């Protein structure tokens, strides 16, 4: 049997195990282990399985993951999100759909610090949904904007998925963080345009509110200054080359704790809960990275990605056609795979193919995160949709599905724009790092 056939069987076995409810890390580990054993024998496979966990578990570069998760957990506990929404609401007073746009802006800002889509969607739902409903907003528009806004947390840096992608694709974290910023802001803008368009198309969906003087609006920006300081110091520090990602994450986490205590928004019990959540989240993440490394070694040995590339060349498929197929595959996988698991399973297979067609791995990393975002919000299984319904059980899931549909256009438009203008993602990293 050829190496590529073994690789294909391995991928099928992986998906079969995932469908049979085997945890993602075990499916990756077992397929990776058995596959490597078939390809290169038992002794080298045991050597690999012995060193991978220690190499991953002692990697300085991966220390950025728990530290940024801690920063996000503490930020969630301190209620910074509430200040952000209040400021956005005042700034956009008088604009039809202003509360939905404000929720999107606050989600983008909060997601930037938090780094988790689900946490952003849950937090902003608690804060913004009651206000939107009180103002007479349609449940679909309100929940759609919150679900879409929540997904921004994984694209705007710091993004845990981008760190994981960097580890598996051997790319620079600062470069990926720089690449994620402009598309993240562009996606926020596109989501806002969708919210305004829906609000103006169906005026009953978003009753107009009274405007406020500019003096009041500008004063409102002062509210979330702590958030702005945290973002500028951490992400600005990375972009400026002042801090490494680990240093920025440490300072961000420390800063969030100090801001929390100084503003009396954080208690010791809140902090302990944040730390406990961080440990539990990272416990889940790191075992997946162990398994993904084994699986990745297996994929390299099988040369399955090369076979896929040869197949694409044989079919005379162009680069954009191959990328379009990959994106469709990601959207389909997004129906049943969780974001980080999806990245770790698919990147070892797709990235070599993408490179062969001349695409930049940093650009591809951003594309992957955008399609993971789509997976988080597309019906029927987008996780953010269920998060919102869990917080507002009286809203029917069908209303949430209806509400999210127009927002799905935004990431698809962004993907098309990124194909046409790759500089959207690549300009900033090139300007900063050459």
């Amino acid at each position, binding site marked *: 049997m050829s190496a590529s056939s073994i690789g294909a069987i391995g991928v099928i076995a992986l998906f079969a195990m*995932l*469908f*049979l*409810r*085997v*945890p*993602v*890390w*075990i499916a990756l*580990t*077992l397929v990776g*282990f058995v596959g490597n054993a078939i390809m290169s024998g038992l002794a080298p496979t*045991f*050597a*690999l*399985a*012995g*060193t991978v*966990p*220690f190499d*991953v*578990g*002692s*990697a*300085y570069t*991966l*220390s950025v993951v*728990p*530290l940024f998760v*801690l920063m996000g957990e503490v930020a969630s506990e301190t209620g910074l999100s509430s200040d952000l929404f209040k400021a956005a609401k005042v700034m956009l007073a008088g604009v039809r759909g202003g509360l939905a746009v404000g929720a999107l802006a606050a989600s983008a800002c909060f997601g930037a610090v938090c780094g988790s889509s689900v946490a952003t969607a849950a937090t902003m739902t608690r804060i913004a949904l009651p206000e939107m409903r009180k103002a007479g907003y349609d449940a679909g528009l309100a929940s759609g904007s919150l679900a879409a806004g929540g997904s921004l947390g994984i694209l705007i840096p710091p993004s845990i998925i981008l760190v994981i992608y960097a580890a598996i694709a051997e790319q620079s974290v600062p470069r990926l963080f720089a690449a994620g910023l402009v598309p993240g802001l562009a996606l926020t803008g596109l989501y806002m345009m969708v919210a305004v368009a829906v609000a103006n198309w169906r005026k009953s969906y978003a009753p107009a509110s009274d405007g406020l003087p500019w003096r009041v609006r500008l004063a409102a920006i002062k509210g979330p200054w702590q958030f702005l300081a945290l973002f500028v110091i951490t992400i600005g520090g990375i972009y400026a080359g002042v*801090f490494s990602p*680990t*240093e920025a994450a*440490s*300072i961000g*986490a*420390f800063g969030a704790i100090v801001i929390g205590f100084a503003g009396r928004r954080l208690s010791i019990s809140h902090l*302990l809960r944040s*730390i*406990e959540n*961080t*440990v*539990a989240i*990272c*416990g*889940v993440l*790191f*075992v*997946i990275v*162990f398994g993904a490394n084994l699986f990745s070694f297996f994929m390299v040995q099988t040369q399955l990605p090369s076979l896929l590339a040869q197949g694409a060349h044989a079919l005379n498929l162009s680069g954009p056609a191959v990328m379009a197929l990959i994106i469709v595959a990601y959207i389909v996988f997004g129906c*049943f*795979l*969780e974001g*980080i*698991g999806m990245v770790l399973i698919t990147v070892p297979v797709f990235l070599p193919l993408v490179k062969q067609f001349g695409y930049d791995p940093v650009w591809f990393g951003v594309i992957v995160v955008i399609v993971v975002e789509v997976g988080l919000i597309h019906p029927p299984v987008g996780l953010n949709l269920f998060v919102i319904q*869990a*917080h507002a*059980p009286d809203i029917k899931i069908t209303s949430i599905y209806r509400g999210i549909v127009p927002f799905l256009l935004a990431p698809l438009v962004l993907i098309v724009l990124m194909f046409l203008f790759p500089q959207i993602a690549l300009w900033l990293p090139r300007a900063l790092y050459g």
Partner: protein
Amino acid sequence: MNRDLALGLLERLRVAQLRLAAVALIVMMCVTVVDVFLRYVFNSPIRASYDLVEAMMVLFVFNGMSTAFLQRRNIVIDLVDSIAARGAVQFLIRLSDLLTIFALGLFIYAMFTPALQSYGYGERKLELGLPIWILWAVALIGIAGAALCALAAFLLPAISRRDEPLE
């Protein structure tokens, strides 16, 4: 030893490992913050901060897993829950519990040889001077604790997400 006593002891083990991981996380954060502060303010960084962060990572990663295993927090694709009979789902959860113990056992067995080699070669962290075999020992003890917590999960009822109350 009865089942409840065993579960109680394993829960204590999980909490102990969680606390160790929490301490490692805080140390990692504080060391880095102090290092940056001393570097930029006094031009005098902490010499072994890099090694210390790596050492704390080992403590954090290998002790942080136990909670995920005991509380079955690992990511699963639970599509089958909505189509399969409850008994079948419980069987799959049990199967996953067994595979978890097997996979962790596989890692523990595989990690012994490089750990012994590290001890034999007398490798040390460059700046901290810490023998690397100590970190291997920490990793092995941590992952063994995680395996015991996975065993505890096997003793617990097999509950799928649809059996849990909505948050």
